[in-house]
């Protein structure tokens, strides 16, 4: 049916008549529009370096700060979405682009996110001189870097994983590349992408909080938001304010989850590529509202019409002329040349970086930073081991009780989303009060937020362990240590590895904020490459920031290659349950 404006409403099918939910929906829509206007106005305020934006500790301002924080997150999410669509499509469609893009993405994933902030902030400020927008962009960019890479990977994996028969059907029925992208590839990728977005946003809160207080060349700027609020609270040693911030953050996470991700997850069920209908997800209330309220039908019809129009235009685009098909030999030659360009480019950049760092820093200091990296590595490793010792038994215990597990899982997701840096002040106060050893007791902060991934995955792995196996073990009288060794540990291993990889990645990232913590004018500093980066960022010493980030990234890459990817392959190859 062609929706025309001005058609009498009464003639519409009953599903278009106003419903109870319209009463709820209308204010929400209007509010959202006004919010956007307000936010863009706030963001483009004039601002000059050295100025201080007043951050009040009065909890009355917290809703506004929370809103600003959410908007930053939303901006980063949209940017990540656009970036990942373009990047993943390019990598999936062109073999030559893939050769460059995928390894680059892999490295980008290993670069500590707060490192991006340190490096890019001056550039963004220069982009919008005299405006707050530059700082906002820098913060959003930092959040973007915490989300974009794994969303892109997810999309890329989905794009190259589109089943061949669907591709053939699409070609057989003459879908243009444009139609194919929107009707086949994107829908196929959606479920995984939404899941990844949820994980990314959960991880992103940590970085929003960390990036709102930006230090540039010794000047610190506080962007209005929960992160700045808490950093002011830390300066004032105000534990009450810390408490308010924690409550505000909790509410934000719950609201975003309820309004955005529950509905999205339920909605993308239909895109799941499963031949048999899997378990039905209960429709979340917000999705019900979206689907029942007429006003949203209007909007979705409008959007649908726009999509259709774009598809129609896309369909009418003349098909691309077939690329001149290179002979195999010429193709190979181009491949070789392309490879050579890539290698040469990489070598050039590597030399540039080395020269840049060596211009300022002596080899003694480089060795020292490498040593600092080793100390941080030791922390990460022991923390993962410790967290595993604690959470594997607990996770298995929960996973063996499916009813409990299903109730606990959303709660754990919530814990993983909660930015652990909000809890740092409490830890610092404890360390100070009991005069604990900083080198050791700062470490748990690194895994505070990421240990939940281990717990979550262990529970999921245990849930996935076929009951048959458990029954066999029971009948054979396999108990105690043998039960762990022969049944549970191999059974949950793939899930555990996934959780541990995520946890370890998070811990590396957290090291920059966890190895240096403050309470009022007391600063606790542990030895490690994270602390090094944090200090040099505060001092605005670029060659040293670059050195720290390079060393940290190098450790992450090597560590991933040597340990995690091997464990992952072992899990994939030998211990898959099928």
């Amino acid at each position, binding site marked *: 049916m062609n929706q025309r404006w001005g058609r009498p409403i009464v003639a519409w099918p009953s599903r278009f008549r106003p419903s109870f939910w319209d009463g709820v929906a209308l204010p929400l829509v209007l509010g959202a529009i006004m919010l956007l206007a307000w936010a863009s106005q706030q963001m483009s305020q004039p601002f000059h370096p050295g100025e201080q934006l007043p951050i009040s500790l009065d909890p009355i301002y917290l809703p506004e700060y929370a809103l600003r924080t959410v908007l930053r997150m939303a901006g980063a999410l949209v940017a990540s979405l656009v970036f990942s669509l373009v990047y993943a499509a390019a990598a999936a469609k062109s073999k030559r682009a893939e050769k460059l893009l995928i390894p680059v993405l892999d490295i980008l994933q290993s670069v500590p996110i707060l490192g991006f902030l340190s490096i890019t902030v001056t550039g963004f400020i220069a982009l919008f001189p005299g405006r707050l927008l530059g700082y906002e962009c820098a913060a959003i960019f930092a959040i973007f870097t915490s989300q974009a890479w794994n969303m892109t990977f997810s999309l890329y994996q989905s794009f190259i994983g589109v089943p061949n028969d669907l591709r*053939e*059907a699409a070609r*057989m029925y*003459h879908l243009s590349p444009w139609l194919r992208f929107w009707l086949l590839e994107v829908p196929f990728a959606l479920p995984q992408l939404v899941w990844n977005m949820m994980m990314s946003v959960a991880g992103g809160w940590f970085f929003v909080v960390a990036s709102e207080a930006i230090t540039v060349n010794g000047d610190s700027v506080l962007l209005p938001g929960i992160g700045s609020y808490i950093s002011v609270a830390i300066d004032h040693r105000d534990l009450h304010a810390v408490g308010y911030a924690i409550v505000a953050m909790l509410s934000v996470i719950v609201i975003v989850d309820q309004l955005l991700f529950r509905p999205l997850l339920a909605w993308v069920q239909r895109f799941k590529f499963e031949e048999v209908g899997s378990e039905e997800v209960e429709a979340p209330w917000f999705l019900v509202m979206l689907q029942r309220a007429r006003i949203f039908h209007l909007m979705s019809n409008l959007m649908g019409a726009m999509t259709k129009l774009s598809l129609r235009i896309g369909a*009418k685009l003349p098909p691309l002329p077939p690329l001149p098909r290179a002979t195999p030999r010429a193709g190979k030659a181009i491949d070789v040349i392309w490879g050579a360009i890539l290698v040469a480019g990489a070598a050039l950049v590597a030399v540039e970086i080395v020269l840049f760092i060596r211009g300022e820093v002596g080899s003694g200091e480089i060795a020292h930073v490498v040593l600092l990296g080793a100390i941080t590595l030791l922390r990460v490793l022991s923390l993962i081991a410790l967290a595993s010792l604690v959470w594997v038994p607990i996770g298995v215990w929960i996973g063996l009780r499916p009813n409990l597990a299903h109730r606990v899982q959303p709660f754990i997701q919530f814990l993983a989303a909660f930015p652990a840096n909000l809890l740092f002040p409490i830890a610092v106060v404890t360390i100070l009060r009991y005069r604990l050893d900083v080198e050791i007791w700062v470490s748990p902060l690194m895994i505070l937020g990421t240990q939940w991934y281990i717990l979550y995955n262990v529970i999921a792995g245990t849930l996935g362990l076929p009951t048959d196996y458990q029954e066999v073990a029971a009948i054979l009288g396999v108990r105690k240590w043998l039960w762990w060794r022969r049944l549970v540990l191999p059974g949950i291993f793939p899930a555990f590895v996934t959780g541990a990889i995520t946890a370890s990645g998070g811990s590396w990232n957290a090291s920059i904020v966890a190895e240096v913590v403050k309470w009022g004018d007391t600063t606790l500093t542990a030895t490690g490459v994270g602390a090094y980066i944090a200090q040099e960022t505060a001092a605005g010493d670029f060659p040293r920031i670059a050195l720290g980030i390079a060393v940290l990234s190098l450790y992450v890459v090597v560590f991933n290659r040597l340990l995690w990817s091997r464990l992952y392959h072992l899990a994939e190859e030998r211990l898959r349950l099928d």
Partner: protein
Amino acid sequence: MSADTSLSPGANAGAAAATALIASHAVCKTYTTGESAGRLVLDHIDFALKEGEIVAILGKSGSGKSTFLRILSGLTEPSEGGVDYRGNRVEGPAHGIAMVFQSFALFPWLTVLGNVELGLEAQGVPREERRQRAVAAIDLIGLDGFESAYPKELSGGMRQRVGFARALVVNPDVLLMDEPFSALDVLTAETLRGDMMDLWLARRVPTKGIIIVSHNIEEAVEIADRIIIFGSDPGCIRNEIPISLPRPRSQSDPAFRRVVDEVYTQMTTVPGTEAAKRRAEPIGVGYRLPDASIQQLVGLLEALSIPPYDGRADLPKLAESEHLSTEELVILIEALQLLGFGQVGGGDIEMMPAGREFAAADLQRRKQIFADHLRRNIPLAAHIRRVLDERPGHAAPEGRFLAELEDYLSEEEAAKVFETVINWGRYAELFAYDYDSGVVSLENP
């Protein structure tokens, strides 16, 4: 559906000899993997589909029949030669050719209606007409009432009906079907096949020719005017059997059985044992071994050795009584012949003395016999054993054998053949294999 095109008779092959709808000329396909020279999977295929004809293509897996269908459809480009559709060279999927897929290939996020409309949408057919034609196609194929259902709500048979509706709604001249019924259970497949044939015979679809790739011999004999049998390595047209049985055809008709027997014989004749027609060449190291399971082979030999067969069985009957699909049976029969336990003639499998001895023996003796036959008749097994005997440690990494196999087969096929020979070799205790290290050796744990 608008049947605006005049139809030529569907059943009567004689009257439709006129023009070729779609024809391939000396089509070759070579797959290049890495630095090796490339493997020939299709070797100079000349084929023409005449108007009003249904052609079934049979052949064991790996004979390139699906690849050939994709070349006809324009999905895959031939390495040499070309395909003409109504006198025009096929370059990419052509309008007028539709395809039905084994896996249905429905878009799970589109409803039945959305899936059926897809091809029309891509052609830019206006919305009203699109809806009308899609609904007509859905009615035609017996899916009315399911327009708003998502594929995952439907059973396999219903899904394939959507697949057919999606193909028919674009009014194709030529309908290509890639094992359209093989993912369905027997009963559902029969019903759907019957419905399709009714539409075709009653000329309710504008389609002028059908090519169906199948591995089910009865199915092919039931619906085809002509059966093409593909030989493998490289894929080629081994044989062509015209079927002039009157329609509707009954599976119990003796004439029908005779044709089925003939096709069975053609299908199960192994190159090495094929006496007359071609160069009788012994199979080589790179031969694509059929992935027959030891359990099934042993079971089949035991069944053959006792009444009612007593050493000789009619292949179609054997398939029925042992509950084997044609595909499974073809694989088992090929393995029996390769190993020298049986031979095929006139649609029958006959046990050879070694097969009888095997069936009568106890477990240890069976393993011995099997080992002897492996070494004598399967060059790959003999080769692996020889290499292991010669090596000082009597062990070799699997990679070395896989690399040798990949000279002849694709990576995937090589892995499959290697897995088969490992299974056979393990049963015969000819060699051992360690999964974790990927090492083939002589030691038995």
